[in-house]
């Protein structure tokens, strides 16, 4: 059964209770959605009797065994803009322009579980309709089948914790792994109950999972899912390097399992926003983290993409409360972010680089992140007018080992205009003991090219022609930008 609910404003979601049973807790759902969705959402399609694989995994293993009766099916809410109309007699979704794909007007879905409490189940919402969403969000393309239509939505998966058979940490693991399975074909899909089982050496049964999960168990989940997790714990509140690395991994497109150890709470970090203007301020070397205004989190007590400020207490907490994170890496990233953090500033210790290539240290902003060699080549190809043709040839020739760390050095003025003066490329498969883990360091006048296949590693110099650009474009294509609606 399908019901179309037109909305003049998100507050009209209060009408959900007229169409959805009390076991789905529609008043609470409406209250949460109306406070977080933008007015661009103009209609909800209510899909009843939806079979949700994640809820069913918990139903078969837990809810069906209880004395209280729980329904086997869920309700799914689909969100559309003002262009879409529903024909209840023909069960058709219409847009006026037949050549305009329906997915262009679709903002995603939330599943409601019949569990009386914590009823927001598997959800994928577009960050474009989340009030206050950060500018850069890690997202994947999710396929949605409804009424015979195959729709798509870009977003990051989220759900409420079940409370009795799973807690915040299970929900954060599930979100990250569902993103991985949708985004990368190498990872398989894990259902909610799978995550609960994977966290333990044996199936503890009963309500033991509701007692929580430790960091070691979360690492076990990510390892069992085929990723290579790295755990970072902040040294103390002055450990700025911890946050440089946190941002670097998110900027690389890796969602983080983040822990607030003092609050015993876990979330997933999936994006960030820069500050609007940063050229001023005190002198001294700066990092991309210093220019970050907020991080976007998936918190199982909130709707997705909650913006969390970096330097002040927000509505709930701030980034200062995060003191550990796990990054589930792919196999071939051996060179860790803490090594890049030191190496990036260490290049200023080399007189020839400090005097001839790097910008003045006190006026520099450092940003570093991981990308693939092919993504970097694609970026350079797109901006090839900014590069000497010989440098393009070098970049197309470097025998990258899939992943590469990129360090971008900008002056503060360049930072504010999304420009970069120097770029260094580190082989992500290098050892932390290597003194030259580099593939390339270049500015507009000179490139140092490292032949890592020569024994010993060889360094060559390329003098670059002036191609009429004062700096290079910043590479920000790892994450998609939010277009607030």
């Amino acid at each position, binding site marked *: 059964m399908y019901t179309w609910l037109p909305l003049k404003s998100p507050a009209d979601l209060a009408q959900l209770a007229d169409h959805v049973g009390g076991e789905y807790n529609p008043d609470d759902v409406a209250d949460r959605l109306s406070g977080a969705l933008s007015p661009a959402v103009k209609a909800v399609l209510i899909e009843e009797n939806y079979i949700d694989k994640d809820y069913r995994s918990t139903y078969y293993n837990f809810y069906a065994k209880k004395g209280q009766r729980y329904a086997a099916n869920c309700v799914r809410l689909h969100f559309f803009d003002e262009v879409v109309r529903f024909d209840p007699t023909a069960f058709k979704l219409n847009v006026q322009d037949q050549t305009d794909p329906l997915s262009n007007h679709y903002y995603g879905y939330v599943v409601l579980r019949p569990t009386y409490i914590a009823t927001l189940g598997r959800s994928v919402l577009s960050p474009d309709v989340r009030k206050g969403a950060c500018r850069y969000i890690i997202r994947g393309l999710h396929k949605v089948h409804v009424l015979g239509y195959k729709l798509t939505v870009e977003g990051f998966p989220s759900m409420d914790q079940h409370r009795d058979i799973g*807690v*915040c*940490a299970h929900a954060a693991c599930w979100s990250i792994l569902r993103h991985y399975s949708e985004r990368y074909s190498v990872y398989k899909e894990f259902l909610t109950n799978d995550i609960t089982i994977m966290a333990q050496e044996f199936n503890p049964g009963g309500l033991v999972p*509701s*007692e*929580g*999960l*430790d*960091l*070691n168990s*979360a*690492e076990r989940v990510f390892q069992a899912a085929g990723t290579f997790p790295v*755990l*970072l*714990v902040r*040294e103390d509140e002055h450990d700025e*390097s911890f946050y440089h690395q946190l941002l670097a991994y998110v900027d690389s497109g890796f969602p983080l399992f983040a*822990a607030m*150890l003092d*609050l*015993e*709470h*876990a979330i997933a970090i999936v994006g960030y926003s820069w500050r609007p203007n940063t050229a001023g301020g005190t002198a001294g070397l700066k990092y991309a983290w210093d220019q970050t205004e907020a991080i976007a989190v998936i918190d199982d007590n909130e709707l997705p993409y909650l913006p969390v400020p970096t330097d002040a207490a927000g509505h709930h907490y701030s980034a200062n409360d995060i003191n*550990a994170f796990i990054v589930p890496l792919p196999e071939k990233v051996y060179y*860790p972010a*803490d*090594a890049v*953090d*030191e*190496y990036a500033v*260490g290049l200023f*210790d*080399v*007189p*020839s*680089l400090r005097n001839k290539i790097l910008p003045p240290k006190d006026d520099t902003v450092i940003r570093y992140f991981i990308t693939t060699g092919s993504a970097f080549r694609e970026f350079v190809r797109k901006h090839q007018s900014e590069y000497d043709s*010989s440098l393009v*040839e*070098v970049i197309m*020739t*470097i*025998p990258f080992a899939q992943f590469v760390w990129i360090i971008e050095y900008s002056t503060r003025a360049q930072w504010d205009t999304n420009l970069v003066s120097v770029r260094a490329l580190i082989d992500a498969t290098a050892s*932390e*003991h*290597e*003194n*030259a883990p580099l593939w390339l360091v270049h500015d507009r006048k000179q490139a*140092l*090219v490292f*032949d890592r*296949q*020569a*024994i010993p590693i*060889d*360094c*060559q*110099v*390329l*003098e670059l022609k002036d191609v009429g650009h004062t700096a290079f474009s910043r590479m920000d294509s790892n994450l998609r930008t939010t277009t607030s609606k």
Partner: protein
Amino acid sequence: MANDAKGTFDHIKGLKKANPEEFAQFKKAMSDKVIPKIVKKVEARRLRAAKNRNRRLKD
């Protein structure tokens, strides 16, 4: 044999050998100052991780 092997970038015109003195200076600066800091930092990270693996998350 090794001397006859082709370098990765041999076909690219304009590439010249780096000044050996400057390249040696580069490697020395890294080996003396930067690499020890990296090794210490990575080891400290591993120790902190080992100490905190049993911290519980439940809210």
